[in-house]
C-alpha cells in the first residue's frame, strides 16, 4: 500500500527521471553533481540520524574511496573491466577502513562528542598527508598522488564489450545516479524497519538498556559506521568519476563540515528529506560559489545556526510534515 509520505519521494523521482527530456547536457551534468553528494549525506543520516553518532569525518571515507579508485584504475587500466571492478574494490577498501575505525571507536569506549573529534582528526590527517605528496617520489605504481593539485587522468567507470564501449558519463551517469539513489533510499528504509534498525534507533536513546536486552550494540554500531563509510565512498568514487580528479581539499575542514550542515538542515531523521535537502543545498552552494566561494560557506554556516535554533528537526522534514498534514491527512 502506498503510504502518504511516499508521495513526496515518488514525485521527486518522477521529476528527476524526466529532467533529461527537458534540459540539455550542461544541466544534466550539474544535477548529477548535486546528487553525487546525497550518498555521503545519507550515510551520515544513517549513523547520526538513526544511530545518534555524529561523525564529522565522513569526508575521510569520501577521499579514501576517490583516491583508491584513482590509484587502482590508473595502475590496472590495461586489465579487462577495470572500470567495473576498480570502484567496487575501492568501496570494499573504504568499508573495511570504516569498520576498522568503527572497531577502535566503539570497542574502545569512545562516544558522544569525542567521536566527532576523532573522526574530524582522521579526515584532517588524511588531507594533510595527501597535500604533501607533490614530489615525484609520491607515486603508487604508475599513479602520481600529485599533492595539493590532486590526482587526475583516471579512466572513467565503464566497460568495453566487443566494439561497444560504455562510460559512466553524461546522461548514463545521470540515470545511474538516480537509480542508485532510488535503490539506496529503499534499502535504507528497509534497514530502518528491520530489527537491526530498531536496535540502532533504540541505542540512540539508551545504549545500556539495549545491551541489557541481549544485543551487541558495539557490533551494530561498528557495522553501521562501516555502512556509512561505504555510502561516503560511493559519493567519493562518483565525484572522482564525474570530474576526472580527486584532491586533498575534498577531505578538508570545510568539506567535512558540509555534510553535517546538509543533513542537519534537511532533517537527519528522514532519509528522503536528507536526499532532497542535500540536492537543494548543494545547488544553492554552487550557485553562490560562482560569485565567490566564501558566500556559500557563510550562507551554509548561517543556515546551520538558524536551523539549530528554530528548526531542530530540519527544514525539509518540517515542510514535509506540514504538507502531509495539510493536504494528505484524512479530514
Amino acid at each position, binding site marked *: 500500500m502506498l503510504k502518504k509520505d511516499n508521495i513526496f519521494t515518488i514525485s521527486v523521482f518522477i521529476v528527476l527521471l524526466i529532467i533529461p527530456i527537458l534540459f540539455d547536457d550542461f544541466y544534466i551534468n550539474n544535477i548529477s553533481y548535486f546528487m553525487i553528494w546525497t550518498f555521503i549525506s545519507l550515510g551520515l543520516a544513517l549513523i547520526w540520524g538513526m544511530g545518534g553518532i555524529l561523525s564529522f569525518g565522513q569526508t575521510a571515507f569520501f577521499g579514501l574511496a576517490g583516491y583508491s579508485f584513482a590509484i587502482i584504475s590508473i595502475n590496472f587500466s590495461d586489465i579487462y573491466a577495470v572500470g567495473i571492478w576498480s570502484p567496487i574494490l575501492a568501496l570494499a577498501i573504504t568499508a573495511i577502513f570504516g569498520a576498522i575505525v568503527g572497531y577502535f571507536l566503539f570497542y574502545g569506549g569512545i562516544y558522544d562528542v569525542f567521536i566527532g573529534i576523532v573522526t574530524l582528526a582522521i579526515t584532517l590527517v588524511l588531507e594533510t598527508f595527501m597535500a604533501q605528496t607533490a614530489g615525484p617520489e609520491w607515486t603508487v605504481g604508475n599513479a602520481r598522488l600529485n599533492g595539493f593539485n590532486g590526482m587526475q587522468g583516471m579512466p572513467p567507470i565503464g566497460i568495453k564489450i566487443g566494439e561497444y564501449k560504455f562510460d559512466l558519463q553524461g546522461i548514463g551517469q545521470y540515470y545511474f545516479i538516480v537509480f542508485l539513489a532510488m535503490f539506496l533510499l529503499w534499502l535504507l528504509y528497509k534497514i530502518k524497519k528491520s530489527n537491526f534498525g530498531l536496535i540502532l534507533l533504540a541505542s540512540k536513546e539508551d545504549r545500556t538498556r539495549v545491551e541489557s536486552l*541481549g544485543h551487541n550494540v558495539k557490533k551494530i554500531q561498528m557495522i553501521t559506521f562501516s555502512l556509512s563509510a561505504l555510502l561516503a565512498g560511493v559519493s567519493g568514487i562518483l565525484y572522482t568519476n564525474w570530474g576526472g580528479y580527486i584532491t586533498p581539499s575534498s577531505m578538508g575542514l570545510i568539506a567535512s563540515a558540509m555534510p553535517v550542515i546538509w543533513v542537519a538542515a534537511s532533517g537527519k531523521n528522514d532519509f528522503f528529506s536528507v536526499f532532497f535537502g542535500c540536492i537543494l543545498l548543494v545547488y544553492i552552494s554552487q550557485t553562490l560559489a560562482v560569485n565567490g566561494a566564501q558566500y556559500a560557506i557563510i550562507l551554509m554556516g548561517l543556515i546551520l545556526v538558524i536551523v539549530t535554533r528554530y528548526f531542530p528537526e530540519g527544514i525539509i522534514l518540517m515542510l514535509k510534515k506540514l504538507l502531509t498534514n495539510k493536504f494528505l491527512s484524512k479530514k
Partner: protein
Amino acid sequence: MNLLELNFVSKKFGGFTAVDNVSLKINRGDIRFIIGPNGAGKSTLFKMIIGVHNLNSGQVLFNNQNIEKLSLNERINLGIGVKFQAPSVFSELTVKENLILAIKSKFNDEIFSFLEKFGLEKDQDVLAGDLSHGKKQWLDIALSTISRPELVFLDEPTAGLSFEETKKTGKIIQDLNGEGVTFVIVEHNMEILKQIAKSVSVLHLGKLFFEGSPKEVLSNKEVTNIYLGIL
C-alpha cells in the same frame, strides 16, 4: 539447585566500599527480595551481577558457570532478564516495537499475549514515551521477561505505582514465577514484598545483614531498626 551464586563479592568506589564480601545463593523458582535502607548497596550489587559494574573481588556463578568475564549482553543471552531502577523503555519506538526489540525470534508469536498480560494491548501502536508512568513500568518488566529468561532482576519495579498498580505488578510477577521464571527483586515497597516474596535478603552498609523468609525478616527487630536508622 542454585541458579545464581555469589561468593564473597566486593565493590569499592575509591575509598568507599559499596558492597563488602557478600555471598548469596538464589534457588531456581525463588522470588528473592533484596531490601535495605538507602545506600545499603542493593543497586550496586544488582549492577555487579549483571556486569554493569566490575567486581573488585569474588565470584558470580550462573547455572554453575562463572560469568564475571562476560559482557552485559552475553550474560543476558545466557538466560537473564534485567529491569533497571528508572523505567527505561524506548520512548521513540512504539510499545510493540519495544517488545520486538526485546523478544527472541522463537517467542515472536507471544507478543500479543504479553501485551494482554501487562494490560498494554490497546497501546501497542502508542509511542512508549507517551505511556503513563505505571504502563512504562509494566512495559519495562515486559521487556525483561518476554524472552522467558530463567532469572530476572527487577530494580524497584513498583516505584511510583499506586496501590492497585502495585498489586497488579505483584500478580504479573507471581504468574511468571508460576511459569518457571526466578526473580531477584530490589525493593523498598513492603506491600509487594508481603504479597509475593518467597525469601528475603537484607543488606546494610554493603554487607549481608540477614536472610530468611518474609515473615522472619519482617518480624526481626534488628531489620526494623536499620530501616528506622537506629543501627
